[in-house]
């Protein structure tokens, strides 16, 4: 059987940075597997700019950002295999993959880094009634058609959901000569980045209809329009508020789901709050030697943070292979207090060293709130913020020595405190 020290599943931003991280830590036997023809993952179709402000202090497009990492991977001579689909991962770290060139292969790895990214929630999962006609796309699929295939789905557009890809596609479709009539968001706030709302909707006069949803889809052979209605606090449509929007294209940006089918095959525990693996501060999953990072672990807002997280996973995978990852002591659970959703990591080892990074999404919009980390009832971190929103992740770096009393602590509590009215 083919063998490798570190096998990385996925050659998108997470996989590339994980490979670079592992290499720079000293690993020399690394293999990246990717299902597509070219490395770079979904960044290949993200031709807008805004990537890399944190990592490179400059504004890059998605393909440029990916290329920086691809160049490094190639400079280091890290082997990668494209057009190779992983179809199984076992708990003892045997990966089964298929490709045209090599047929079916089993590869035994010492460590595996899961970097499969995420997928978009489809229409069917929303249960939106109406016709099942063409003209309804997830925003990312439309993005692939326009940006990689050079084809336009349509010219009269409504966008359901205000996730970042939907916002970016509102601007992109406008650039391509389409008329974007509205961006319709069920919640009273957007799930996208503020900067995208300003730069992709406001700048083009595209209305963002908060607390609205699509309640009907029309058109037998092709989409001809949608019915939009306002929703109440229970998120149910309010009768009498329906309004027709003629359109030939409905783009959905209603959420991303980490693609953890392989993860589950390997018996890795999944966290319901993130739909990604349960990990400790080293990004190691419940199966020793299997690590997870990037959007397959939890859906990020910025690719820069994906790269940062993935580098760390790469370093730790190498430490694991070298037997240098200290036997973790007791895993202290991280509890989500008020306002905190989808925290990563879910556990911190009581013997944690270095910097512990916590990331989570606020459950709602909070102004002038404090983000607090508590151990044994004692605040070890308290950080004031101007505004917190579900669209923007909170990223906390905490030196491990600050987590004093961890050995005795039943849990670590992360919570948001809002100022009293």
């Amino acid at each position: 059987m083919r063998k490798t020290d570190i096998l990385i599943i996925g050659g998108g931003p997470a996989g590339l940075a994980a490979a670079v991280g592992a290499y720079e830590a000293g690993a020399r036997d690394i293999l990246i597997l990717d299902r597509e023809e070219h490395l770079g993952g979904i960044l290949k179709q993200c031709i807008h700019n805004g990537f890399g402000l944190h990592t490179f202090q400059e504004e890059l497009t998605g393909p440029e950002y990916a290329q920086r990492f691809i160049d490094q991977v190639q400079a280091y001579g890290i082997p990668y295999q494209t057009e190779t689909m992983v179809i199984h991962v076992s708990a003892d770290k045997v990966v089964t993959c298929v490709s045209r060139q090599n047929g079916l292969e089993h590869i035994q790895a010492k460590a595996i880094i899961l970097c499969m990214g995420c997928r978009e929630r489809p229409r069917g999962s929303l249960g939106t009634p109406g016709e099942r006609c063409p003209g309804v796309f997830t925003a990312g699929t439309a993005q692939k058609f326009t940006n990689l295939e050079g084809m336009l789905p349509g010219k009269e557009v409504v966008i359901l959901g205000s996730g970042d890809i939907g916002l970016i596609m509102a601007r992109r479709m406008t650039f391509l000569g389409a008329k974007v009539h509205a961006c319709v968001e069920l919640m009273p706030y957007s799930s996208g980045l503020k900067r995208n709302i300003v730069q992709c909707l406001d700048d083009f006069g595209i209305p963002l209809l908060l607390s609205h949803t699509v309640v009907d889809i029309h058109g037998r052979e092709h989409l001809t329009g949608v019915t939009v209605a306002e929703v109440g606090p229970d998120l149910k449509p309010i009768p009498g508020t329906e309004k027709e929007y003629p359109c030939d294209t409905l783009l959905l940006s209603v959420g991303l789901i980490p693609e953890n089918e392989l993860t589950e095959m390997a018996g890795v525990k999944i966290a319901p709050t993130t739909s990604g693996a349960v990990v400790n501060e080293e990004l190691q999953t419940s199966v020793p030697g299997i690590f997870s990072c990037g959007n397959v672990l939890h859906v990020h807002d910025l690719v820069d943070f994906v790269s940062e997280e993935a580098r760390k996973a790469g370093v730790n995978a190498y430490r694991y292979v070298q037997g240098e990852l200290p036997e973790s002591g007791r895993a202290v659970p991280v509890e989500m207090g008020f306002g905190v959703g989808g925290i990563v990591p879910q556990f911190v080892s009581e013997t944690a060293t270095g910097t512990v990074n916590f990331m989570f999404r606020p459950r709602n919009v909070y102004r002038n709130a404090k983000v607090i980390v508590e151990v044994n009832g004692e605040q070890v971190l308290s950080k004031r913020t101007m505004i917190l929103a579900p669209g923007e992740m909170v990223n906390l770096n905490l030196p491990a020595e600050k987590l004093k009393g961890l050995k005795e602590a039943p849990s670590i509590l992360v919570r948001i405190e809002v100022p009293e009215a």
Partner: protein
Amino acid sequence: MYDVIIIGGGVVGCGVARELSRYRVKTLLLEKTNDICNGQSKANTAIIHGGYDAKPGTLKAKFNVLGNAMFDRIHEELDVPVQWNTSLVVSFSLEDHPALEKLLEQGRQNGCRGELRIIDEAELRQREPNVGQEAKEALLVGAGGIVCPYELTVAFAENAAKNGAAFLRNAEVTAVSKLPNGHWQVVSAAGTFETRAVVNAAGIYSDVFNNMVSERKVHIHPRRGEYYILDKKYKDVFHAAMFQLPTKMGKGILVAPTVDGTVLIGPTAEDIEDKEDKRTTAEGLAKTLREAGRTWEHIPTRGFITTFSGLRSTGDTGDFILGEAEDAPLFFNCCAIESPGLTSSPAIAQWTAEQIADRLELAPNPAFDPIRKAIPKFREMSDEERAAAIAADPDFGKVVCRCETVTEAEIRESIRRPVGARDIDGIKRRTRAGMGRCQAGFCTPRTVEILAEELGISPLEVTKFGGDSRILQSYLFEEGKENA
């Protein structure tokens, strides 16, 4: 000049085409839409009914039981997925015991094969631990099963084509009339044809054709049913198809595993007027969930992958309308085929073909080959089989639909086969590409490319289901310029 023209490429029409190909006969099937299996046959509950439900003495009862007994052979000969997972008809009140008894008695009278008995709450919960708290007892139907309705229809068509039947799609029939020589003339969008016999298997439109040639008028109205499909993650929640005690509108909402491992919930039963109205509605979907909630409490909404609706061809007699029209010689009806139509279809097809053979004095076809092999399913292969498949055809090494693990080889074969796929939905039905949890988000661009390549058309001409259902509108660039 044909011996037989079949109007309609659903499971019944394709089944008749296959059964006729056992004889020396020149058969042509005319399908209105871009592909076979595009009406009721693609949007139904995918159940092999045991035969307890129909009133004794009806055609529904007779053909249900006859059809049910044919599925093992269909599985063997046509390589169609069939599972005998039993059906359970659950009651939620002990006061309904007499109604269960009545079904049991009806099943016995109809000649239901296999186990048929009422089980108490303890046994019900032991078999199906996830059944709702209100469930009290159930009728166990051993002869209940599940089948893939698309593969069944496609298999009938492929096998018929292999044995000599001709198929034309986009061939809507607009007129059927008697010629002076006693033959029938069939006018369609694909040409005008002369034939000795006609089979009316036009589903929801079968009343239209009957009424063109017969004074014994038939009326068929659409009865819409709305469904949810849940992710494969939930495939083990129920083992049997879980019915609820029937009402006068139909068999009620059921929760059933499918042969593909997903879970189906539905259908509602709503009488509508428009024969093309296949919308789902907020009310219908809500009703589906509400009623199914008695069988499966706390249905995981995050498990939904899609919703759809189907139209049943409900006739005004309440029964199937089969056989040669009394006042229109050699015009054979397969009308008003609603539930248990899928289960009955093999028997209806066989019986109709026999009637025709008898009337046209057809001789057996010595070259008839009953065997059809399914497109190899990469997702079901062992690793050894996968390695061998890729060695033989490297396209098996290219997974296009990642959710259902469908390879490029399977997609290409689905297009190249006789009566092959010619649109995105046709590929879906033949291979499951795009039917998984991402609902074709990732694979659509590649599937469009493959279809365009195989059919020799522009990607802009690729449709979801024929007609104007194009996926894409225009190219962005022409002669190096942005063109949109």
